[in-house]
């Protein structure tokens, strides 16, 4: 029996180009997304079949989330937001398959994605609004003597966004997979222990089944949370005034 964190280990596949199991599952996720969506839309049917319905629901879901948070002009970020949502969702769900590597259980990956979001916000904010974008840190209607404190607080809250965004996803995926592995490990340990303990083995198994359902929920929910927060941050870039 391996340690509960063995599943997060990066194993090289082609060391020369740094190609690892993580790389493999990233590419796998991207291939599943692109291949799945292209397959689903192959007929371009006016009356969609099952697969095309799913693709359209995903499209409309992300589009609605983005428009709700940022308005119509936010649609220029739709490819980015859709890519992020699909990548995180697919990576999370692929990780639910036993034996598969979970790309999003590594802080560096989630942090890179979060930095991509914040980088987009900052870059677009300055490009579109220039120094006016800094108004994001200066809420209107605050007394002058309070302003320095408020600006510092706003700055800290802004800088903590990529950290909270990446940590939330990373920690959720990591903790869920560890919990699953621990409970699954209990089943094996109890069976191996023999005697009265063997009879207790189904209990952690039930727990593992329940956790599995919960983890599917978490996988989808965290992808959604990541997307919603991305949309909210993008809204700051589009409309920096408080």
């Amino acid at each position, binding site marked *: *029996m*391996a340690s509960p964190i063995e599943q997060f280990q*990066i194993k090289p596949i082609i060391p020369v180009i740094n190609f*690892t199991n*993580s790389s493999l599952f990233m590419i796998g996720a*991207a291939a599943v997304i*692109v291949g799945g969506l292209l397959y689903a839309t192959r007929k371009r049917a006016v009356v969609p079949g099952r697969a095309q319905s799913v693709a359209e629901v995903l*499209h*409309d879901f992300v589009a609605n989330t983005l428009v709700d948070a940022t308005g119509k002009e936010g649609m220029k970020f739709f490819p980015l937001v859709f890519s992020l949502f699909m990548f995180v969702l697919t990576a999370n769900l692929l990780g639910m398959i036993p034996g598969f590597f979970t790309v999003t259980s590594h802080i560096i990956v989630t942090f890179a994605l979060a930095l991509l979001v914040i980088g987009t916000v900052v870059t677009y904010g300055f490009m579109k609004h220039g120094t006016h974008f800094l108004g994001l840190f200066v809420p209107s209607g605050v007394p002058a003597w309070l302003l320095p404190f408020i600006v510092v607080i706003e700055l800290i809250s802004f800088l903590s966004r990529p950290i909270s965004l990446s940590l939330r996803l990373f920690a959720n995926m990591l903790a869920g997979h560890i919990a699953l592995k621990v409970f699954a490990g209990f089943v094996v340990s109890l069976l191996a222990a023999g005697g009265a303990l063997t009879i207790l083995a189904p209990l952690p198994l039930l727990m593992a089944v329940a956790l599995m359902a919960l983890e599917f929920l978490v996988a989808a929910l965290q992808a959604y949370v990541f997307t919603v927060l991305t949309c909210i941050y993008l809204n700051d870039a589009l409309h920096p005034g408080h």
Partner: protein
Amino acid sequence: MAQAQTTHATTEAPGGAHEDIGFPPFETETYGGQLLWLAITFVALYTLLSRLVLPRLGGIIENRRAMIANDLDDAAAMKSRAEEAGTAYEKALAEAKGRAQALAQETRAKLAAESDARRKALEADLNQRLAESDATITTKKAEAMSHVDAIARDTASAIIERLTGKAPAPQAVEAALKQIKA
């Protein structure tokens, strides 16, 4: 790290030649490779989605929206046309009804006039014939009355002849009759 090592040590099957596992997400030497492949994958994913998949998917949805809007417009146009046809039909019906009524009225009037005329003609005819027959009766009566004298004369002559055995003089009979009539 130490905890992970002990877990590892106690749970590893004997003979397992695994290298020591730390906490993989914090093993900084793997970051470079992960970032490299994340960048490659995500750029490829973004490019494929924004260039190929999303235009296609958005096109399908937009196409359907346009088609539904088109169909709704068509339906509205057809409905208004049907309504137009309905009002036209009603108008035609009302017109036809009016015309039928007028025609009926006309026919009735014509028939009434005709029958009136016929009745008048008949009446005139009858009146004429009545007058004619009246005239005939009068002439016939006069004629008969004129015959009465002759009959009376002849009868008187015959009676006298029977009574007396000889025929009376016509002048005498005439005179006697005149006397009676007077």
